[in-house]
Structure formats: C-alpha cells, structure tokens
C-alpha cells in the first residue's frame, strides 16, 4: 500500500484524495507500526528545510524510513521541501538533510543580473523532461506543474536530474537516484498532470 508520511508537514490528505479518485489504496503513516504494509512512500512537504528535518527526526520513523528506503529499496517520492530534504544540506538552514541523493539545496538566483527575478518561484511552470522514466510515462510534451519555492536542488551527479524547469535559471525539478525520487513542484495540487504523475508513481516497482 502507498503510505503518505505524516510528520506534520504538507498536505497528506490531498495525496490521499488523489489516490482515492484513482481507486488506488493509500493511507497515512504517522508512526512506525503504520509503515508496516508500505509498498511505496511519499514524503510531502510545505515549509522550511530545518522545520521539516526537525519534524521528521522527531517523528520516531526516521530509522525505519532509512531502512525501508536504503535497505529494502521501496520507491519513495519527496515533494517540495520533502524533495529538498533528500539532499545533504541546504542554504536555507543548518540541519543536515537525509543525504539520500547527493546534492545541495541553494537559493534561486538569476543567471542574467539585468533581469529582476521575483521570488519565490510561485505558480504554474513548464517542465522539460531530460530523460525517460517510468514516473513520467504518458505526460504531455511540456507538462505544467505548480511551483512554490525559493530554494532548489543542485544535483552533484547531473544524471540524477531527470526534469528541469526554467525560472531565471534551469532548475532541476525532478530528481532520481535508484528508488528515490523527488519533485520540486506539487503534484497533489497540479490537476491532471499531477494525477498522472502520482498514478505512475504507484505503478513503480523498484524493490
């Protein structure tokens, strides 16, 4: 069953609603015992990096998640700040991240200094798919998703970035390393494209 990790951040219910609509079994997991039946994990997030790490570390699920993701190899999808905490660390805070994908989180800056970039990157933007992946099967040519962030994922290994968007600079907005996925946008709030992506995620079989 798909388990939405409920650590006090992000819209757990919105994910459950999408899966309900798709008739795919999903439930929230707020403690270790609720992770038992997990086949897929979603790490949602709206908030700041340190707050997300504090809450996850204090959730009592941290060790079991390390085990399920790194040892068992369950597919996991980090969303927004839930994607950012997959990295080693962030300019936004001082806490170490999960370190599951090699990379760092940095503030968005404009490549061209003459352009005034309004931050945060807020709203609907197009995503360019850089490499084929089962997560992205059947998506439109340049699908639009909803973004809301000031910081972005900088991948240490270029191949982990499988989708980008442009806002002042190219931003890696879909990252993947083995069974670990992250998306900077909010698929749970991105209408039909988000629904397709979440459906694809539920079809992944990494373990």
């Amino acid at each position, binding site marked *: 069953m798909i388990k939405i990790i409920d650590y006090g951040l992000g819209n757990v219910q919105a994910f459950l609603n999408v899966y309900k609509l798709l008739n795919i079994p999903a439930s929230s997991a707020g403690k270790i015992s609720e992770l038992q039946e997990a086949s897929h994990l979603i790490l949602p997030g*709206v908030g700041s990096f340190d707050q997300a790490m504090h809450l996850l570390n204090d959730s009592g699920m941290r060790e079991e998640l390390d085990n399920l993701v790194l040892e068992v190899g369950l597919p996991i999808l980090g969303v927004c700040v839930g994607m950012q905490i997959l990295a080693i660390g962030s300019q936004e805070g001082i806490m170490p991240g999960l370190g599951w994908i090699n990379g760092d989180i940095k503030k968005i800056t404009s490549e061209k200094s003459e352009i005034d970039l*309004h931050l945060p990157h807020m709203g609907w933007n197009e995503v360019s798919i850089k490499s084929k992946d089962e997560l992205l099967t059947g998506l439109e040519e340049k699908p639009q998703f909803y973004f809301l962030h000031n910081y972005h994922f900088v991948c240490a290994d270029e191949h982990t970035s499988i989708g980008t968007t442009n806002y002042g600079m190219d931003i890696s907005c879909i990252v993947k390393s083995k069974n670990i996925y992250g998306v900077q946008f909010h698929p749970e709030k991105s209408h039909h494209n988000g629904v397709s992506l979440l459906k694809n995620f539920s079809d992944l079989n990494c373990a």
Partner: protein
Amino acid sequence: MLKPRIIPCLLLKDGGLVKTVNFKSPTYIGDPVNAVKIFNEKEADELILLDIDATTNHFEPNYKLISKIATECRMPLCYGGGIKNVEQAKKIIGLGVEKLAISSGVLDNGKMINDIASAVGSQSVSVVLDVKKKLFDEYEVYTHNGSKRRKKNLFDLISRIEDMGAGEIVINSIDNDGSMKGYDLDLAKKIRQITNIQLSISGGAGSLDDIKVLIKECGIIGAIAGSLFVFKGRFRAVLINYPSLTDKKNLFKI
C-alpha cells in the same frame, strides 16, 4: 515560462461563502466545499480563501472548515483570516494549506512576518493590504474589513514587508471591490516596479479583458477576482465560472 496566476477569491462568513461590494453588503453565494469542487473541475490556478469574520470578531481560524476545504482542494490554497501568531500559522500549514494570508496581525507586529517565515518558509507567507485611495495618488491602509484605518504609508510598508521575509504581497482595493469596473492599474504598476517578491492584485475585475490588461501592464502577476468568477450576467446570478485553457492562453498573449 512561468505563467501569471488567475485566482478566484472566496470570502467566508458564518461558514458560508459571500461576496461584498466595497467590503460591505455581503451576499450569500453558497457552500465553500461545493465551490472548491467546481474550481477543481475547472482546474483553477490557485484559490484564496479569506475569513472576513475572524479578525473583526476576534475568532480563532475555523480549523475544522479550513481542513475540510484544504482536503477537497486540488489546486494550491491560500488561507487568510485571524492569523495572529506562529502556532496558528504552523497549524494551518499542517492542515494542507500552501500559503497563509496575514494582514492586521502584521500591522500590529511587523516581526510576525519574520517569525512565521522562519517557521513555514517565506514562500508560504502572503501579506494582504486593503487599500483605499485618497486624493493626490496617496493610499491608506485598512484592516478589519475596511473599518480600521492604519497610519502607515503604503509604499514604506511594502518595502518593510519585503525586508521582513514575505513571499507575496496582495493588494486589495477597497474602492474597487465588487465594482467590476477593472483593477486599479496605476497602483498595480507602481507597486510592481518597487517589489521584488510576488505580487497579486485584487478588487475590480469585471471581465477577462480586465485581467488581460493587468497582465499586459504588469507581466507575471496574480490576478485575483471575486465577483467575476461567482456571478453571471447583469442581475448577478450566482454561477461559478472560470476561464478555460484556451481563454487563458489568450489572456497571456501580450
């Protein structure tokens, strides 16, 4: 490319939706959850939900209703009304709301922006300023549904809000609210020029053309509308509506 945002604004009063004119005479529109379902179907860019009773009546935010709406909402949601401290802010974000709209709380205590931004991230902090035009292009800032005038200079306030770490400023024109006579474009342009964070404009949209003009003048901006998306025709019959994908593409053509 990032698109401008076209945002229906829903006003909550006594658990139901209303629409005002110049912040007065609320007309009942219907049930909020039902409206959200219709905007889901129409794939709206974002929703802003403002509880117009909370601050004035010193109510706590109605967490139960916010949770119900956030759960139903398949587009990003901004909630405002009665947010006075970090604990409330964290709680609302925890219910599945993407952005918080704060207004009177910030004018009472500017540090609150900083505190909330540190807790939930500045991308989720929107500051709403209700403004009324005076003579000679000056503007006054109000809170409590336009009943309490604040002795602050609008433009100073905006730069302070930005420095304190807000992610978005929402300018709501009391004069144009519900009038459907178009946005206050002069003000929108002036503020767009001086802000580096995101900006949304509310008050006065009466047609898609009004939105088109706003986008043309200001670029990537949030165009908020209330009456336009809940009323139809000259008798203001309640009919929830939203531009189709084709209509929207046309609006973005500059």
